[in-house]
C-alpha cells in the first residue's frame, strides 16, 4: 500500500505524537473532573491535597440530586422508546418508499442536527408556552425527541439500507403476513441499528442541557440542568462527583454500542 504505516519513517512518529496529544486534549478534562471528585479540597485544587469520598456522600445525601437523575432517566427512556419507534417508521418510508419529495423529507428529518440548539430551544419554548406544555414532562420529552430523532433515523436507515427487501419477500412467500415478516425477520435482522438508535437517543436526551434549561421548571429539572444551576450558585466538588457519574453511565452505554457494532461485523 502506498501509505503503509510501517514505511512512513520519521512521519510515523509525528503522527503517533499528534494522536497522543489529541487524545490527551480530549480525555484530560474528564480525568481532571474525576480526580477532583475524589479530592478533599473544597476549592477544587489540582492536584488534590488528599483523597475523600465526602462529595459522593453529599451527593447521595441530597434528595434533589436523586430526583434530578430520576427525572433525567424517565425523560431519556421515554425519548428512547418514542425515538426508536418513530425513527423505524420514518426509516421504512425513507428507504422503501418511492414518492416525490423523499430526499427533501430526509433532509427535513435531519434538520435538527444542523440547526443551532439555542434557536431550536427558543422556538420550542415559545410554542410550548402557547400550548401550555412548558415545564411539563411531555414538553421535555417532545423537545428532546426533536434532537434525538435524527440520530435514530440515521442509524436505522443505515441498517435498513443494508437489508435486502428480497429477504422480507421470501418470508412473506413462506407464509408470513407482511407485518409478521417485518416483526420476525426484518426487525431482528436490523436489531443492531435499532440498538444503536436507542443508545444514541438515550444519550442525546440524557446529557442535553440547552433545551433542558428552557424546558425546566422548579418542579422538574434534569441532571445536567441541576449541575448547571448548582454551578452558578456555588462551586462545589459535588458537581464533579455528579459529572463523574454522568460520564460513567455515558461510557458504559458507548462501550455497549461499540460491542454491538463489533458483534455485527464479526
Amino acid at each position, binding site marked *: 500500500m502506498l501509505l503503509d504505516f510501517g514505511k512512513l519513517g520519521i512521519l510515523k512518529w509525528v503522527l503517533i505524537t499528534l494522536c497522543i496529544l489529541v487524545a490527551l486534549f480530549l480525555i484530560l478534562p474528564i480525568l481532571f473532573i474525576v480526580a477532583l471528585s475524589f479530592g478533599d479540597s473544597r476549592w477544587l485544587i489540582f492536584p488534590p491535597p488528599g483523597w475523600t469520598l465526602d462529595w459522593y456522600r453529599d451527593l447521595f445525601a441530597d434528595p434533589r440530586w436523586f430526583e434530578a437523575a430520576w427525572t433525567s432517566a424517565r425523560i431519556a427512556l421515554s425519548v428512547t422508546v418514542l425515538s426508536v419507534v418513530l425513527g423505524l417508521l420514518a426509516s421504512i418510508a425513507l428507504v422503501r418508499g418511492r414518492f416525490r419529495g423523499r430526499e427533501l423529507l430526509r433532509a427535513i428529518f435531519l434538520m435538527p442536527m444542523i440547526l443551532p440548539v439555542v434557536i431550536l430551544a427558543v422556538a420550542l419554548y415559545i410554542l410550548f408556552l402557547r400550548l401550555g406544555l412548558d415545564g411539563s414532562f411531555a414538553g421535555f420529552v417532545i423537545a428532546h425527541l426533536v434532537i434525538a430523532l435524527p440520530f435514530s433515523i440515521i442509524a436505522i436507515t443505515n441498517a435498513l439500507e443494508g437489508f*435486502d427487501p*428480497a*429477504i422480507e*419477500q*421470501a*418470508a*412473506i*412467500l*413462506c*407464509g*408470513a*403476513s*407482511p407485518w*409478521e*415478516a417485518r416483526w*420476525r*425477520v426484518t426487525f*431482528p*435482522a436490523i*436489531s443492531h441499528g435499532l440498538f444503536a438508535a436507542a443508545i444514541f437517543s438515550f444519550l442525546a436526551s440524557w446529557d442535553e442541557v440547552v433545551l433542558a434549561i428552557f424546558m425546566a421548571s422548579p418542579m422538574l429539572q434534569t441532571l445536567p440542568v441541576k449541575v448547571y444551576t448548582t454551578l452558578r450558585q456555588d462551586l462545589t466538588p459535588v458537581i464533579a462527583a455528579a459529572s463523574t457519574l454522568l460520564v460513567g453511565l455515558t461510557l458504559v452505554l458507548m462501550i455497549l454500542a461499540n460491542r454491538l457494532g463489533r458483534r455485527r461485523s464479526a
Partner: protein
Amino acid sequence: MIPPFLHINGLRKTYGPVVATEHVELSIKEGEFMTFLGPSGSGKSTTLYILAGFQDPDTGDIRLRGRSILGVPSHKRNIGMVFQRYTLFPHLSVGENVAFPLRVRRLPQAEITRKVRRALELVRLGGFEERKPASLSGGQQQRVALARALVYDPPVLLMDEPLSALDKKLREEIQYEIRRIHRETGVTILYVTHDQEEALRLSDRIAIFNAGRIEQVGTGAELYTSPATHFVADFIGDSSFLDGTIAAVEGRCADLRLGDGTLARRIPLHAPGRPGQRAELMLRPERIELSPDPGPDGASLPVLVQDVTFLGNITDVVALTAWNAPVTVRLGFMHPLSGRLTRGDRLWIRWAAETVHAFPRD
C-alpha cells in the same frame, strides 16, 4: 374437461409506458419442470413475480387447479420461491430458517423437527441445523433456501435465476441437485434463467420469452429442431444466419438466392414467403459439414477459414462466405479436419436440406 394444473391466461403488465409482458399464455402440467428462458427485460421475471403475488397484472388471470390465485395475497398462496439473491434470514440458524414456514403455520414442534431434518437431507445438508447463514458458501445458502421453499410441500416452486451468483462448476453441480430434487419430490417448478444451457439441462419444457411475449413453448429438442421464429433459432444453439432472397416457392420449401449468386435449394420455410422476398438461411454449427470438396449443387458454399478455436472436445471454426458473412462450424474431436485447419484455408460448407431453415423477413 379437467382444467390444466396451472394456467396463465393473457397476462399483461405495464410500468407506465413500458410494456413488461403481453399476451402471456401458458399451461403447465402437474409435476412439470417449466423454464422461462429469455434475455434480461424479456418479461420472464415479471411473469414469475406476478405468480408470486409481488406484482399485479393489468389484465389476465392465473389459475391453479382451476381457481384464480390473483385475489390471494402472497403469504396465502402457499407457493415456494428461491430468489436470485441470497435471502436466508441472517439472524436465524439454518434449522430455524427452514423451520420458519412451519412456525408461521403453527405446526407442532415434533413435526417441525422431523420436516426440517427431512428437507435438509433432501438438499444434502443434514447436520447443518445449528450453522448460521453467514458461515455457508453461496451454493450452500441456495440449497438451504431450496429446503426452506420445499419444507411446506408447496404445489408450485418458483426459482428466479437461483444460480446466477455462483461460478460455472458449482452451478452445474447444483443444477444436477435440482434435477434430482425435482425427481424425488415431484413438485411443479417454474424456473427463470437467461442461460440456454441451464434451461436445456433442467427443463421438461421451455418457454422462450422475448420483448414481453412468449415466442415458443416446447421441449429443448423441439425448440432446437424446429424453432418457430428467428429469435428462437438464434437463442437456442448458436446459429449463423445468411441473407438471401427467395427465388422460388414450392409448397413449404423455397429456393434461396444467396449473396454470391449461389442457389440454396429446397429449404424448409418457417413462415409463408413469396418470390422476391428477403429471407435468412439458418445454419446450425454442428449440423453443417466442412469439407475440401463441394457438395451436391444447391447445398454447399465456398468459404475462407477466418478463425479456429480449440475448445477441448470440440473445435469452433468461423469461416467467411464469398460476400464476407461469418458462418460458425463446430467440429467434433474425431473429425478428420480437426486440428489441421489454419486461418486462410479455402474449404466448402455443406448441408442437408432438412437440417437448415429459412426465415422470411417482414
